[in-house]
């Protein structure tokens, strides 16, 4: 069995794990699961995302080949550090005990953190700020897309008024939890389930009849970042990103 498939099996096993246990038993089980998840497996999951994000950075900051080579070196070191931390967040997601303080749940954010850390000592502050602002705007765009999809699914079931749709958008985006939409595909039509959103972010905006329907809707826990592009493996896009762009070779090193 190849590693991604092994990882998927592990996820499935963990998802099928039994009823809630006492906290210390849960911690113990989490530790064991983290031990089983080797850093290499996590890194394998993160690498295609890293390659794609690096391509983004290359263009955004107009990196020279020397800068990019240095970035790769730094990135490798940071990757080792964060992969173990991500393993903890990853396992806690399966077990439903993940909290934001456990570190990012979304592998995309982890990769962005790795790159930001790798860049920290190498780039001028203005460029670093520019990258941080850009990733924050991109995250906001993804959050809006996910929140709107969730409100649409609510609308399909509860027939909301235009005002309710707006109130719910506001409620979800201001109290956003990244674990609700690790996979956008999972909240598209055809999946008649909602992420595990707390009632107090939804119920105050519903009528009594709508509350009744909402309480009977099954909720799901997402455990994995979407690692494909509308069904195409992310690795294909990463391979493309790894290919050296011809115009880079001619670019002179930036004066520091």
């Amino acid at each position: 069995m190849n590693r991604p498939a092994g990882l998927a099996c592990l996820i499935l096993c963990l998802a099928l794990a039994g009823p809630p246990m006492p906290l210390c038993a849960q911690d113990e089980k989490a530790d064991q699961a983290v031990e089983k998840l080797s850093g290499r497996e996590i890194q394998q999951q993160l690498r295609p995302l890293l390659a794609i994000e690096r391509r983004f950075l290359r263009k955004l900051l107009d990196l020279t080949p020397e800068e990019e080579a240095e970035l790769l070196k730094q990135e490798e070191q940071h990757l080792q550090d964060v992969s173990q931390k991500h393993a903890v967040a990853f396992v806690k997601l399966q077990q439903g005990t993940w909290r934001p303080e456990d570190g990012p749940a979304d592998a995309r954010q982890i990769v962005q953190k790795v790159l930001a850390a790798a860049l920290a000592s190498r780039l001028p502050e203005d460029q670093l700020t520019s990258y941080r602002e850009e990733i924050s705007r991109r995250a906001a765009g993804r959050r809006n897309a996910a929140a709107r999809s969730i409100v649409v699914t609510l609308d399909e079931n509860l027939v909301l008024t235009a005002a309710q749709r707006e109130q719910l958008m506001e409620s979800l985006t201001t109290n956003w939890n990244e674990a609700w939409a690790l996979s956008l595909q999972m909240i598209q039509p055809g999946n008649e389930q909602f992420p595990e959103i707390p009632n107090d972010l939804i119920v105050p905006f519903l009528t009594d009849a709508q509350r009744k329907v909402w309480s009977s809707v099954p909720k799901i826990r997402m455990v994995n970042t979407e690692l494909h592009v509308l069904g195409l493996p992310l690795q294909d896009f990463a391979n493309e990103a790894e290919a050296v762009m011809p115009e880079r070779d001619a670019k002179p090193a930036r004066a520091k």
Partner: protein
Amino acid sequence: MNHRRKIHDARLDDDGVAREEFRWNRSASGRRLIRVGCLALFILSGAVAAEEQDGDDLVEEALPQAREVGQVVIDEQNFDQWVYRGDAEATRRRFEALLRSRVDAAAQAGNLTEGQKEKLELAGRGDMRRFHERVEVLRLRFKSIRHDINAVQAFLQEIQPLQLAANGDPFGQGSLYARTLRRTLTADQAAEYARLDLERRRFRYQARIESVVAMLDNGLAFRDEQRQTIVTLLLENTSPPRQFGQYDQYVVLYQLQRIPDGKLEKILDPDQRQLLQRVMDRFQGIEPFLQQNGLLPDPADEEQAGTGDPRAAAENARKR
């Protein structure tokens, strides 16, 4: 082959629940047949419509092996699995909830009388009964052919519209409900209903567009400005599907393909254009499927896309 398997595995990570629950009578047919069944279901699964070409190849490769294992009888329970994803009761509950939502939506348009509500509910129940009658006709056919693997293969294609209906909205265009709604509402109620329906469809379509762009962003890594411009381009130059459902993202992609090249070229970098083309190539053959199932936008809507004529759009929504 290995490469294709990998794609299949990756899909199972995200949305493979229905496929993993797939059940076969294992007594006589053995594991090979299970694989054939899984592949067939893989083709039929809504989330992978665009993978049909690859899936067909896989079934073609695997079928001769299944034939070699001799006479098999496919378990009757598979029929429910194919049509309802294994849970007929959940489909029934979903239809009930949809009908209630539809009537509530009509009620938001004005004070419906009890008589009007009753008519609408009755029409909706008629649509549900029609659907269940179609299911039972095909169930009987399945019972008569379930011992013949070749006939079952053809049958799996035959029930595709039914699967689509089970996961779709039985009260949309062409339904008894839609016809009754047109006849039942007063002119004022109909105008208000059309306005609300248009608002709802716009919100819904924007959500689909933003999701598709966010999913493309997984691999193409758009800058924020690019993402916003593509969303606006799609909102202004394309139209919502006739019926919203599980294939909405393919309707958006299909229309993205048809946006004149120059407009996208201005927004995307050369490498992003290449990668986008690779995604588009995978969905080249989707048009006949969307066309056959009445999912492509209404031509009248398409004409108005980008013209910003809300009155004409509202008129279309009213007719709908």
